[in-house]
């Protein structure tokens, strides 16, 4: 069956379903005019690939993605008044944030995948999440490519490293980048979602096209490992 045909199927045994191996929800108090880093031990034998959302509402009736947030900011140098990011290292999941507004309670949700270079034995977590594993009314994205690539250091101008997929349409894609520092502190091999700066002016983009995806490397950044998940689905 062609790729085009596989995309029409509820499932295809050639392409794995996503498996969420970590879930975390919680809240914390965020002081006004402050920055924060919250850490949560994940207990996994690898560094997970994190994503998720945050909110100022306990029911997530208003919901932001990490690397975005509340606007506008009264600070002329900032677009967002309050913004949060998520990343992980070998021990913890971190929620980091900047708040230029008043004190508030922050609610967060994190879900994470296992990197392709791991084959760990894991405890099941289906009881922590949505119990309906398969529902024929919904589409299940089919994981087409799942891996990592070692990016070179940035040169004098922006550069790109490409991963061919040849699907023919722009696929769903997710990416993460490994940094060794955060906000000037050493944090070896921490994995951040793409485009979230590590606070040290290193923010690598992921770009998707109908034949390949790419990691965009800003000038002069250090070499990093990048992880990607590319799906058949658009």
């Amino acid at each position, binding site marked *: 069956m062609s790729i085009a045909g596989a995309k029409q199927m509820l499932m295809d045994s050639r392409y*794995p379903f996503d498996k969420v191996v970590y879930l975390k929800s919680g809240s914390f108090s965020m002081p006004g005019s402050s920055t924060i880093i919250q850490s949560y031990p994940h207990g996994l034998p690898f560094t997970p690939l994190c994503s998720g959302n945050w909110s100022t509402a306990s029911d997530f009736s208003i919901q932001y993605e990490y690397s975005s947030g509340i606007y506008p900011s009264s600070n002329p140098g900032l677009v967002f008044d309050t913004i949060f990011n998520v990343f992980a290292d070998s021990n913890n999941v971190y929620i980091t944030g900047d708040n230029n507004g008043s004190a508030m309670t922050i609610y967060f949700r994190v879900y994470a995948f296992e990197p392709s270079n791991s084959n760990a*034995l894991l405890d099941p977590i289906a009881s922590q999440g949505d119990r309906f594993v398969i529902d024929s009314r919904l589409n299940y994205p089919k994981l087409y490519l799942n891996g990592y690539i070692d990016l070179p250091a940035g040169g004098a101008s922006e550069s790109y490293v490409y991963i061919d997929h040849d699907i023919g349409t722009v696929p769903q894609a997710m990416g993460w980048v490994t940094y060794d520092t955060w906000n000037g502190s050493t944090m070896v091999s921490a994995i951040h979602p793409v485009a979230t700066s590590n606070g040290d002016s290193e923010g690598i983009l992921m770009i998707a096209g109908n034949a390949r995806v790419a990691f965009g490397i800003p000038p002069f950044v250090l070499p990093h490992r990048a992880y990607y998940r590319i799906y058949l689905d658009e």
Partner: protein
Amino acid sequence: MNRPNQFIINSQFPTQKNEDGYSGNIIIPGSTSIPAGATATGRIDLIAGSIGSISRGRISSTKSTNPYVTQAISYTRTGTVSGSPAPYTMVAFIWRSAPDTLTFQVLLKNGYGSTLISEAGTETIQFYSSQFVAPYA
């Protein structure tokens, strides 16, 4: 315990369930006057997904050679302040502004102490988002 990376499907781990895909374009007129310290906004609200739905999205700009970026994106554009070139930040991102509402958003921030005239030429920001059922209990 088992090794989920060895399985095509594994009912012991939540999976990602795609509800539907949504798209929209925000057109940004060129040479727009933005008062000092203000943020100009463009926005599309769609009734889409449900409370807590997560987004797997992509964003592109007609002024960028890149096809799509797969995350919130910050662009640098150059307008003028008092006739002199003035770089400024434009951000495009996706969020949920209400329980049933998916929002595509563009922000143009004037961080200067005087009126900013935004970059010349119309720019279209294209959004696409797949909405997923949240994997949490």
